């Protein structure tokens, strides 16, 4: 469903809701008008539904705004505070951008959805009445249509995006990508998410190196789609950049000149704050994209035309994590599993030629399957979460693909009613056979995870002599080393301060939660350092093999988290929690940290801290450089061996995405995107770093190179 259709649908729902409200429920003539709430429905769809769900039930990073959960969080608070929250803190990534009228309309809509009755007076910024005095939390049953053509107050009209192949063109002399190329990438290419199957994010190029990086200059830039969360990886093959924009817009650009060759605006358009595309994939003569509405597309790499399209999962599921191609199969994860549903989260594989689904592996252990008894007896439809929102890696020799699995939903065990159950395969590393989808082994890093501290991120594959290892790091900031043949725990290292675990067994890796986390109840504030920003988040590690260094972007902030009672029906669940943010003690308000760990012994070799967190993955090169960008618009090159900053420039907005390096005719380039939108990595510094000011737009691709005289 497009966002326009969603908006129309929500307007209809809103009208029905409001009609029912007018016929009963709470009486009030002092809160808001029917017209405000009707306008608020469309404003909600435009600005809020991406995070809180079309039906206000809540999704990742967006709590429920209806029913018991909403009344628990807001019932005893005033409408003025609700207005202030929306007008100052929403939407994430661009807080304060809603006009006063828009904020008021959204308040009216949320109140109406919870059975508050409209009256004769408009809701204004200063209107203050206790929410529970006018709303019950019940969703009205009878729902009339709203007046058609109703204007939306205080909001400029938004152009309707045209979908389809909007720019026709042809990539001349395209060379199909082979399995051999994916296994041994050509030096000048960046063919997949983390460049190689092992997830190193390392380029063998060395024209740009420590002694000349200060000469780096902009070669060209390209304005990308606005809206959504721009966290892209430019995919590069033979001098062509294949670029995934928000709104599922795919473009082919001449990587030397920045000239657009073709563009396919697949859609649906991006909703505010969340859902971008972390990576496309190339194989044969096709470009693959998993769209934000959970469809997998194969485009003709030469022309951008759709070759085939399949559904990964029905709405409202989605996908942002990118895809990888292994032995002729396109492997894709899934997200949007926040709410109780008859469809559980899974990883699936599709024939690259035809789109035919080959296999499916449920990342939620279902009733009657191995691990299915780890959900405290909950039925399948209440086994939410376990999303896979970062594409996996692959070991060709072992023919095994490795994926991280996110936390269960709701976030807190008290909310999701799972007690001390492990809730497999949340918080796990999975080793799967890419031919069949069969599970070879799993390692659950945090059984029964309870604070939105995912361990879903990159799995980096490193051979240490004969031993084949796997490294990963999650939001809790623990760097893990596993034997990737057996899944056996090898070692762990704490990279930032944490107070969540009272003990991590150095022999087994078994974690013990702090006592109050284990005994939590809904309605209690529980402290978590790090909080959901991480530790570590989607900004991926790079492995620099020449120095055996893992260079890891880290963040430092904490939260108090308050679990709520979820709606246990279909569509319920969600995150069911509210948060308060604070600086991590002892960090001098430095939210950003970059650290290098030697893989062999997991010793920290260097680190430095700064106010702004890093919002890009790390790219290392054989030039001895590590490139990384931050929330405060700086893009930096540091020396791999020392961490010394050798070059930096300031871009138009937050440097966000996955930087890459490529070459054309012997000239090396560095490409990186800027972007807004996203979850905790954007939300927490937006609140805590009060001196950082960012434009409200500015999603771009920047390409740097040395002067042509080199």
């Amino acid at each position: 469903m497009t966002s326009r259709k969603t908006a129309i649908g929500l307007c209809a729902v809103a009208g029905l809701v409001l009609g029912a409200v007018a016929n009963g429920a709470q009486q009030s003539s002092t809160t808001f008008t029917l017209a405000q709430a009707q306008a608020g429905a469309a404003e909600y769809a435009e600005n809020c539904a991406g995070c809180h769900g079309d039906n206000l039930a809540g999704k990742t990073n967006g709590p429920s705004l209806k029913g018991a959960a909403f009344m628990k969080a807001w019932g005893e608070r005033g409408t003025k505070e609700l207005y202030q929250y929306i007008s100052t803190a929403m939407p994430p990534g661009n807080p304060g951008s809603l006009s006063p009228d828009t904020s008021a309309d959204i308040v009216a809509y949320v109140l109406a959805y919870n059975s508050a009755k409209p009256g004769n007076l408009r809701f204004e910024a200063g209107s203050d009445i206790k929410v529970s005095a006018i709303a019950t939390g019940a969703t009205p049953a009878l729902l009339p249509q709203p007046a058609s053509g109703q204007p939306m107050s205080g909001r400029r009209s938004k152009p309707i995006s045209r979908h389809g192949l909007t720019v026709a063109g042809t990539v001349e002399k395209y060379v199909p990508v082979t399995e051999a190329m994916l296994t041994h990438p050509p030096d000048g290419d960046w063919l997949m998410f983390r460049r190689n199957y092992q997830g190193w994010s390392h380029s063998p190029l060395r024209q740009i190196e420590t002694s000349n990086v200060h000469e780096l200059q902009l070669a060209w830039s390209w304005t990308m789609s606005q809206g959504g969360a721009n966290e892209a990886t430019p995919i590069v093959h033979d001098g062509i950049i294949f670029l995934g924009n928000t709104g599922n817009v795919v473009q082919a650009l001449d990587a030397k000149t920045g000239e657009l060759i073709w563009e396919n605006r697949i859609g649906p358009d991006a909703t505010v704050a969340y859902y971008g595309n972390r990576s496309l994939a190339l194989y044969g003569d096709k470009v693959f994209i998993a769209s934000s509405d959970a469809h997998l597309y194969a485009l003709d790499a030469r022309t951008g035309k759709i070759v085939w399209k399949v559904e990964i999962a029905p709405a409202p599921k989605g996908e942002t994590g990118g895809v990888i191609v292994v032995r002729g199969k396109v492997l894709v994860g899934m997200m949007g599993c926040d709410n109780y549903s008859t469809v559980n989260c899974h990883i699936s594989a599709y024939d690259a030629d035809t789109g035919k689904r080959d296999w499916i592996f449920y990342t939620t252990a279902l009733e009657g399957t191995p691990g299915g008894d780890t959900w405290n007896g909950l039925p399948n439809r209440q086994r939410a979460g376990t999303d896979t929102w970062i594409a996996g890696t692959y070991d060709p020799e072992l023919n095994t693909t490795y994926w991280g699995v996110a936390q269960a939903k709701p976030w807190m065990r008290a909310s999701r009613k799972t007690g001390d159950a492990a809730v497999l395969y949340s918080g796990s590393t999975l080793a799967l056979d890419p031919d069949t989808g069969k599970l070879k082994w799993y390692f659950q890093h945090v059984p029964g995870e309870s604070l939105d501290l995912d361990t879903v991120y990159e799995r980096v594959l490193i051979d240490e002599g004969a031993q084949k290892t796997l490294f990963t790091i999650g939001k809790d900031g623990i760097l893990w080393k596993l034997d990737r043949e057996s899944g056996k725990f090898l070692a762990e290292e704490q990279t930032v301060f944490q107070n969540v675990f009272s003990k991590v067994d150095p022999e087994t890796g078994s974690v013990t939660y702090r006592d109050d986390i284990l005994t939590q109840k809904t309605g209690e504030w529980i402290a978590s350092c790090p909080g959901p920003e991480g530790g570590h988040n989607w900004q991926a590690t790079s492995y620099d093999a020449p120095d055996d260094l893992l260079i890891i972007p880290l963040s430092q902030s904490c939260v108090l988290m308050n679990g709520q009672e979820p709606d246990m029906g279909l569509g319920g669940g969600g995150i069911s929690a509210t948060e308060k943010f604070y600086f991590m003690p002892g960090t001098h308000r430095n939210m950003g940290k970059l650290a290098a760990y030697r893989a062999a012994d997991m010793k920290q070799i260097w680190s430095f801290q700064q106010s702004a967190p890093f919002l890009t993955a790390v790219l290392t090169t054989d030039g001895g450089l590590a490139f990384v960008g931050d929330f405060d618009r700086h893009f930096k090159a540091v020396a791999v061996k020392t961490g010394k900053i050798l070059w930096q420039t300031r871009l138009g907005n937050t440097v966000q995405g996955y930087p890459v390096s490529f070459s054309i005719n012997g000239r090396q380039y560095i490409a990186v995107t800027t972007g807004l939108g996203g979850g905790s990595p954007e939300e927490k510094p937006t609140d805590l770093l009060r001196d950082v000011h960012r434009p409200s737009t500015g999603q771009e691709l920047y390409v740097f190179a040395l002067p042509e005289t080199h």
Partner: protein
Amino acid sequence: MVRPRLCIRAVAAVLAVCFGSALAADTSFTTELDPVAHTPAERADVMGTGKLTAELAGDRLSVSGTFSGLPSPATGAQLRMGLAMGVPGPVIGELSATQSTEGSISGSITLSSRQIAALVKGAIYVQLNSARAPEGNLWGWLQSAAGDQ
């Protein structure tokens, strides 16, 4: 002059036995004051900054420091203890604070052995309350001055 030094040495000796020699030197503590945990809507009420030091002499902890930049006048300050650094907890003693948007914090509080142990592991913090943030405006966890290079 002799008695306090002896007392400090005695405490240090006890700490050395209880927590190891590395911790025995932890009689000087410091912290910076940061905004307390807040929602974005509460953010405007919890701004400000500050810096504190604390000295443990025997079982007596003396705290002093300054704060500034509060959005509303301070109403009081407290010593509190949580389960770990970064975990809020109950009040264990009252401190005095200038009733203004900037000023000083000071006070001395006798700690139990359990509280001294909590201090050594970083679980004791100072919280400054203000008119618009009566449940907390700034806070800071006391950490060994030796470790805060």
